[in-house]
Structures are given as structure tokens and as C-alpha cells.
């Protein structure tokens, strides 16, 4: 091993094996996946995100939700995800590569300090719940160590009519009732739109059959 050329060639070959195996081949295999198209309606599955949800994805990324929440549901063989209802209630199923086709980026996550969010839009379909939760998670989920995101809300004095967006029935650390209100910023609204759009088990994909609970 005293010839530089030998070492360089060896390093190049080793690099190329994994580069081909785990970059090029996955690119060919996964990079060209197409949405599932219904023969009669021509509907595409998964459907594209509504615009505001795409902005919300950026807010999700900016504030690092991924460090405590995953967005991937494993099959019954690999974990308790489906038993926990994270794969949807009616036709529980795992997530597969095509579920992320319309995302600009996927936040699969590697840590579950909190619950998985792949289907959080199906489980929690009330925007108000999400706003409350973002403002102070421990209030809707006592004992939660999810950080409150007060910076996503504006505390302001009510002038004339209260805002229709104002947080309903806010609890502790509250604005003075009737005189102040907490209004979600556009960022908070986009984030909630994104969270509510996460309903990956609400449609079917042929490669991910439903895995009903065993009786």
C-alpha cells in the first residue's frame, strides 16, 4: 500500500459501490414513482397539498417538529404503530414511498418523544385544538413536554370587534378577558393547515394493503 494511485483507486471503487447501490439505484427505483391514477375519475392519489399547507410545511421544518415527531407508520410486523391508531382507524395501513410523492420534503423523523404525525389530520380534525396545542401543549395534553410556541401568536388589545381567529377559551397565562386576545399569526395558520392536511391513510395505495387489528 505504498502507491498513492492504488489507494486512490481503491477509495474510488469503495465509494462507487455504495454510491451506486444507495444513491443511483434508489434514484432509479424511487425517483420516478408516479401518483396512482383512478381509471374512471382520473383523480390522482396522493392529491397535491393545498397551497397554505405547503407554507405550513416550511414552518414545520423551521421549528424542528421532526426532532420529537415522526411521520412514518410501520407495519404491524415492525412495531405498535398501527395498534396505537397512528395508521388511521378504518383501514389502518403503513406508509410507503408513494405517500410522500407530493411533499417537497419528507420529515420521516427518528425520534418519538411525541406521537407520530403521519395521520394527525385524521385524528385531530378541529383547527381550534391545534391552535390551543401549539400555544400551550400541556394544557390540552397534561404532562406534555412539547415546548409552547407563544411566538406563533400575537397578543393584542381588542379594538371594536374581537378577531374571529382569536383563540377560543384560552386557559392559564391568559390575556385579560374581554380586553385582550390571542391571535394566531399567518405562520401558525399555515402550520395548522399543514398538520390538518396530514391524512396519509385517508386514501388507498395498492402496495400498502390495510392491516386490520387481529381480533
Amino acid at each position: 500500500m505504498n502507491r498513492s494511485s492504488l489507494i486512490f483507486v481503491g477509495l474510488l471503487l469503495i465509494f462507487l459501490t455504495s454510491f451506486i447501490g444507495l444513491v443511483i439505484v434508489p434514484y432509479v427505483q424511487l425517483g420516478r414513482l408516479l401518483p396512482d391514477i383512478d381509471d374512471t375519475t382520473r383523480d390522482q392519489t396522493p392529491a397535491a397539498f393545498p397551497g397554505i399547507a405547503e407554507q405550513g410545511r416550511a414552518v414545520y421544518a423551521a421549528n424542528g417538529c421532526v426532532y420529537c415527531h415522526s411521520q412514518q407508520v410501520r407495519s404491524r410486523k415492525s412495531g405498535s404503530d398501527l395498534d396505537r391508531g397512528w395508521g388511521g382507524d378504518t383501514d389502518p395501513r403503513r406508509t410507503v414511498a408513494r405517500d410522500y410523492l407530493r411533499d417537497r420534503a419528507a420529515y420521516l423523523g427518528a425520534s418519538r418523544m411525541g406521537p407520530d404525525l403521519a395521520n394527525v389530520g385524521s385524528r385531530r380534525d378541529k383547527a381550534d385544538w391545534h391552535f390551543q396545542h401549539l400555544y400551550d401543549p400541556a394544557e390540552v395534553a397534561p404532562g406534555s413536554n412539547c415546548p409552547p410556541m407563544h411566538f406563533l401568536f400575537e397578543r393584542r388589545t381588542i379594538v371594536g370587534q374581537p378577531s374571529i381567529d382569536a383563540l377560543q377559551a384560552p386557559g392559564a397565562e391568559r390575556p385579560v378577558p374581554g380586553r385582550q386576545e390571542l391571535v394566531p399569526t399567518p405562520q401558525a395558520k399555515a402550520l395548522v393547515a399543514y398538520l390538518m392536511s396530514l391524512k396519509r391513510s385517508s386514501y388507498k395505495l395498492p402496495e400498502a394493503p390495510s392491516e386490520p387489528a387481529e381480533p
Partner: protein
Amino acid sequence: MSSAETEPTPGSTGLIATPETVPASNPPIALASSSRASLETRQELAVIDESLRGSTLLFFGSAIAWLLIGSALSLLAWCKLIVPHFLTNLDWMTFGRLWPAQQDAFLYGWAGSAGIGAGLWIMSRLCRVPLRHGGVLTAAWALWNIGLLMGVVGILSGDGTSQPWLEFPRHVSPILFTAYSFIAIWAVLMFRYRREGHTYVSQWYLAAAFLWFPWIYATVNLVEFFLPVQPAAQAVVHWWYVGNLFGVWLTATALAIAYYVVPRGLHRPIHRYGLAVFGFWALLLLSSWSGLVHVIGGPIPAWMITVSIVANTLTLLPVFSILRNFTGALEGRGHVLRRTPSLRFATAGLYFFVGASVLGVCLGFRWFSEVAHFSVVTLAQEQLFLAGFVGFSLFGAIYYIAPRLLGHDWVAPDLIRWQFWLNVVGLALLMSGLLLGGFLQGLGLEDAKVPPIVIVNLLNPFLLVAGLGVLLLAISNVLFTASFLLLLVGAGRRLVLSKPFVFVSTATPSASAATAPVTVP
């Protein structure tokens, strides 16, 4: 280390007693008696050290600054984790920004910069080539740090990407790529045009590290941010990148340090050189394939994950053959560890390497991963690797190299002793908190009847223990900074009082004015 006052001070790595002669001798033992080191060799080394002094110290200095920044950010992140209601009105102070900011500050800022500094110095010494056109390297250093600063500030101000270990905003990556490529070209050219024909393990690892990073970094940035492919394919490339980042780039840098520092500290060659050759090629090949164990059960084709699991498991073969290189050399010489900080840190780093590798292999087994996969056990593995293996190796490198650049030894032996033990105890607390808590968390997650809130509340006391460990690590990093600053200040003073022998005046033109007028007292 109680004998610090009578022995050569702990920093003493034998600056005068054991000048390095032909560093690449195989086995790479420092020829112990100064009589065998010719004046010519010492002059040559002095020229090399002189040529590298400025840039190596710049990289070490900025690395230590990033170590402090990372420590501060990680303390804040742990405060937020344990007390979520702490400072909720500031967006940059939210956990989800502090966490990636501290991770990347440690990885690219501290480990990246210190690895570059140590890597260039070791490469230069082993190749017996002084650094030429150091100005370009200084420019690359500045660019690298500008990129890092923009990256960390970008994460805190809400431009982070939330892709683990790659959170810097996308406009930062061309800056870091350019800066690192300039640095890597230096190292590769040094290796290609070396004066010492013979090569040594450290050089192979360094060649790998310097070549690897630009490739993987460019690939992952193209695939995820510049020409984005569909997200599931991004995820595969992402974890391929992370696997290479840890398993090749950082591992190769840290092992290059160990292969350099340990035999020299022991005055004994590594045991069974052939194992090192096997270890090198096998480790690179297997590590570069093993990244996808992080997505076991994830929404990507199963064959990719299976290949990664197999490669990940097989890494145990090179890991233990590398360990044998060192345990063979250490046999019967444990007492030297007590008085040579560089050796002690590098050796401890090796044991953390083995520990982190074994834990990493376990995380690849499906039965183990079913419990541990989404728990903080994975965090424990990353920390053992990064703060333990890589961190300790880099401390060892700086303890070895900095005195040689500055011409005198570490000033405060007590600080070094405290730094070592605080680091070890901090890491032990961090590990016990994360591992015990993580297994409890994982078992809870496996049982669908246990609600997430209950799991979090079970985990909290363990996070407190781990947070205490992080605090101790931060304190030990402050001590290390103090030690380094004292060395810099002391260097200015002591150089005037007594001139180290290696800086004997030399007629070589590239030796600058700083060494030339020095006379032997």
C-alpha cells in the same frame, strides 16, 4: 497524574527527548533516542511545523470556539427539554431550533474544524512535505467559518431544513463545499507528492476522509435541495449521507489520529500491521453501506434496509481488528496513559469507538430496533460516537499537536486532569440517562396501551440525569478552552525564556523569521 511535577508535565509528549524522525517508518514508532534523529530531520520537521503553525492553530482555535458555542446551545436545548415553559416568546429559543443548531455546531464546527486542523498537520508530517501557499488555506478557513456561522444563525432564525445532520439552510452548502474542497485538495496533493515514499495507516484514513466529504456533501445537497427528487428517494440518500458522515468521514479522521498519537505516545508500534490494512478497507466498505439502519421499518424498499443491516453488522470485524492493533500495543504499558494526555484521550476515544460501534450494530438488529428505534437510545449511540470517540480523539490530537506548534508544553496539568474526568463522568451520566430512559421509553412505545404522555413522564427523570451529564461536558469544554488559552499565552512568554531544541536555526528559506533567529541556549 499525581506525578505531574516530577515527570515531564502531562502535556509532555517528548518534544525534546523524542524528536520524530522518519514519521512513516513501518512500524511507525518514534525513534526514541535523540541521537538517532539527525539534525537534518529535526530541521525538516521544524520547517514543516513552522509552515503549518498558523493554519493549524486557526483551525484549532475556531474549532474550540465552536465547541463552546455548541456547549452553550446544547445547555439551552436541554433546559427547554426539561422545562418546556422556559422562554416561550422567543422563536429562536424553541427546542426545535436549538437542538439542530447545537448538533451541527458540534459536528461541522467543532469536529469538522478540529479534524481538518489535525488531519492536515498529521498528513504533512507523515508525507514530510511542508505546507505551501498557506494563504489559500487561511482563506478556506475563513470561508468555512463564515459558512458555519451563516448555518447556525440560519437554523436559529428559522431557515433550517429539519433534515438530521444537514440542517444548515441550503444557500450555506455551496460555501462549505467550496471551502472544504480547497482544504481537501491540499491534503490530497500533499499525499500525492509526498517526500516519504512509504505510507502509513493514518495517511490512508486521512486521504479517505478528505476525499469522502466533498462527494457525499455535494450529492446529498443536490438530491435534497438543488435538484430535489421525490422525498422517499431523498430519505434513502439522506441516511446514506449520514452513514458516510459518521462511519467514514468522522471515523477516518479520528482513527487517523489514534494511529498517529497512540504508537508515538507508547513508543511502540501498533500490533499486527496486517490487521490495520484489513480494518481500513473493510471498515470503509461496510460503513459506507450501513446508513439505512436508521430507517428500519420506514417507507422505503426493504432490500435497501436489509443490505444496510448486513453491512452494519459486519462492521464488527474491522472494528475489533482495529481495536486489536491498539490493545496489542498497549499491553503492559498502561502506566504511560497516566502521564501523557494525548495518549490517554486518544485511547479512551478508541474504547468509545468500540462501544458506539457495538451499540450501533445492536440498533441494526430488528428485535433490538423494535424497542430502541424511536427512543433516545439512538441519541445515546450518536453521543457516544460524537462526544466520546470523535471528541476524545480530537482532544488527544490537540494535546499532541498544539505544544509542538508552539514550542512548549501545556501549562496547567490540573486543568487537563479535571477536563478528562469531567468529560468521562459527564459522558457516563449522559449515557446512563439516555440508555436506561431510552429502553424504558422504547418498551413503553412498544406497548400500545401506554399513552405517549405516560412514557414522557417516565422518561423525564432520566432526561434530568442526562442533562446533568451535558452540564459536566460543557464545564469540561470550558476547562479545555482555558487550558488552550493558557498554552497560547504561555507560549509567548516561554519562547523568549528558553528555546526548544527543535527550533534550531535553519537555513531553509521557507522557515520564516519566527524560527530563524532562534539560538540554542
